């Protein structure tokens, strides 16, 4: 009872208002509508980008984010890939060669 009152007073643990929820959902769905990418393609793109990046650096796969957002009617692909460490053994050129080998 008192907890609830305190929650209300200090706006703790308040769930999103329904309009905030609507706005968040719309943001997401509109971003996807605009690029007209299906989730499958997006997933494929995510995998490939990750593959390339992991040749050079070690990525923290738990912390990474990959999302589509909108900025002034322009769609933006946002990839947030936290780097754990740089791979020492590979120089740039060998990394590229390795990627090419993987592809073929």
């Amino acid at each position, binding site marked *: 009872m008192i907890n609830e009152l305190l929650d209300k007073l200090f706006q703790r643990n308040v769930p999103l*208002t*329904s*309009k*905030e929820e*609507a*706005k968040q*959902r*719309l*943001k997401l*769905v*509109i971003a996807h*509508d*605009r690029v007209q990418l299906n989730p499958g393609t997006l997933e494929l793109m995510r995998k490939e980008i990750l593959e390339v990046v992991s040749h050079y650096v070690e990525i923290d796969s738990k912390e990474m984010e990959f999302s589509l957002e909108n900025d*002034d*009617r322009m769609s933006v692909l946002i990839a947030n890939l936290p780097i754990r460490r740089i791979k020492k053994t590979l120089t740039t050129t060998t990394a590229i060669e390795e990627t090419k080998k993987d592809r073929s």
Partner: protein
Amino acid sequence: MSRIIVITSGKGGVGKTTITANLGVSLAQLGRKVALVDADFGLRNLDLLLGLENRVVYTAAEVIAGECPIEKALVKDKRQRGLVLLPAAQNRNKDAFKPEQMKELVSKLAQNYDYVLIDSPAGIEMGFRNAISAATEALIVSTPEIASVRDADRVVGLLEAEKIQKIRLIVNRLRPEMVQLEKMLSVEDILDLLVVPLIGVIPDDERVIVSTNRGEPLVLDERRPSLPAIAFKNLSRRLEGEEEVPFLDLLAAHDNLLTRIRRLFQS
């Protein structure tokens, strides 16, 4: 130069036809010559909302087929000088016509009228394609509901692809008391999402339904002005180029001491 404006939304039932009717009347009240085109072939309703359904003889279909001259198909509104309606055919479907035919029809009207307002059907198929084909400006109608906003965004994308330069947004059926309680998307929220310039906000009001029952657009009733009627009139003045017409303070009607105090603390 006459202005050719399509009223469209993507989603059905958001108030395109009601807005077209009221906008037509209020532009005519400002002394403009206005032709309303019902582009919803097969599901025509603009004649009903204007109360002109009993006077429809010929429709756009006969004009397109060359069976009658366009002047003969136009229904003059006897209550409002300068307003005419070109009814849609009711017995044919939307796919029976092509954008070229719509363009020809509209260009004929443009010779004699200051405004040609085209009431688009819902959806993004052929009927919509026809409706937007002749337009150089568009008014997008959206209600503060999730499905309507999403569809409006789709339509904006399609209009941009068709090179329609002037696209503006009308937010319809806003309920200020719900917005205040954060139970409804606000106009600002919708603008954030759609990024289209705003030209009008119409509050939700029972009188809109009563006026459609009677076939008398709200703006015709000059003796008992209603909030939505004022909003429609402001909208048409903005359309006329009066950019400085202020938006109504819709919250004022619902203000009481408690909400005022609450707002004081929120800000």
